């Protein structure tokens, strides 16, 4: 439970960083989506009910600070969490390169889903002209930031001497699907 609240707290910090600090240094296309990285990690490391609740809350927080309507990121992150869970059963998620590949795939899926929702439900098709050309930059920046975050995470683990390997993924092997 402590880990769950830590995820939420980290998500809130990431949301605040994304709306106030990162815009000072990055143009919109090169701005990383730290919450997406956290959601993907959450999908691999937490059990399903907790991962879903956290993704819904983090989606609502991001909706409150991004875009015009509440509900978009809630739905998108839910799909991503469920897709991650289905995929994690088939893949060796303990491998860091695979995790980075998953982040690239997650970024692509997120952009496709946002494009779909905004075109089909909100009838704002011009958003595709903003969204799709930026996908390569988004993938690069998200993978880059995920690498930094993973590196920091592994360093912290060694520092505190627990959960060696990818943080939380050993936890997953015990609690996955419960």
């Amino acid at each position: 439970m402590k880990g769950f609240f830590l995820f939420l707290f980290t998500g809130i910090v990431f949301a605040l960083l994304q709306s106030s600090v990162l815009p000072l240094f990055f143009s919109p296309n090169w701005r990383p989506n730290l919450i997406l990285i956290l959601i993907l990690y959450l999908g691999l490391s937490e059990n399903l009910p907790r991962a879903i609740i956290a993704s819904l809350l983090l989606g609502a927080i991001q909706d409150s600070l991004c875009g015009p309507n509440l509900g978009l990121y809630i739905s998108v992150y839910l799909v991503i969490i469920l897709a991650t869970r289905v995929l994690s059963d088939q893949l060796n998620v303990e491998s860091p390169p695979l995790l980075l590949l998953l982040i690239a795939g997650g970024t692509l899926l997120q952009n496709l889903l946002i494009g779909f929702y905004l075109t089909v439900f909100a009838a704002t098709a011009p958003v595709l002209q903003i969204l799709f050309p930026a996908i390569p930059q988004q993938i690069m920046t998200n993978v880059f930031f995920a690498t930094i975050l993973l590196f920091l995470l592994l360093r912290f683990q060694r520092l505190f001497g627990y959960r060696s390997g990818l943080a939380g993924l050993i936890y997953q092997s015990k609690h996955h699907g419960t």
Partner: protein
Amino acid sequence: MRELLRRYQFLLLAIILLLITVILYSYNLRHKTATTFFERAILTFAAPFQVGVDGIVDNVTDVWGNYLWLVDAQKRNLELEQENLELHSQLQQVEEISLQNERLRKLLAFVDDLDRPALPAQVIGEDGSNWARTIIIDKGTRAGLYSGLAVVSAQGVVGRIMKTAPDSSRVLLITDASSALAALIQRTRTRGVARGLGAKLSIEYALRDSDIQIGDLLVTSGMGGVFPKGLPLGLVESVEKDQYGLFQQVTATPTTDFSHLEEVMVIVGEDQ
């Protein structure tokens, strides 16, 4: 039946949750201008942090400026260095204040021309995504703001308020893909709808035969009642006419530089 439910419980849960979130999103699309309790809480919680970051950035910029100056001044006499440092610091502050005064004077002059009461506000945050174009300002319901009010800068139209909290508000910029407002070409009075394209504006429904030239000024038409008539929106950047079709494809560059937006004015009243 129970066995079937147990077997497909993951799929069922996924479908039900997905349906709920899609319904929530569709509901909020219908109630765009309403600020939910959750959104208000997040905006209220985020505002002090964003104001703090804004202040820290200003201070760091000042300190960094002073540090650079200090490195250069190491060759000089210590006394002179100290004196110069103080003078330099004071000068920087004066320059910053005078720049801010200049910007605010321009804003006030712009708003005076509008002949409508307006409230100054500071930009404290930006949109966290790469596709939406919104900003957060440091005034909210406590200052009398509500959804739908027009926001302008000295260069032209910025956008309109869409969500409000007691001490902050979110503004939908005119460059957001979901923003569309009635516009006209100032020179020829050709009508169209200015829609956001991220960094540019696309002018939709401009008739094919209408005379639109590169460099023409695009202004608000005043239709819809949100924005006063004649406010600058952008400058025409490209005009394309297909062989067939009723309309021409026109894009414009916004007159407002959204990457350097610090102060804005919220138009709070009706025509005087």
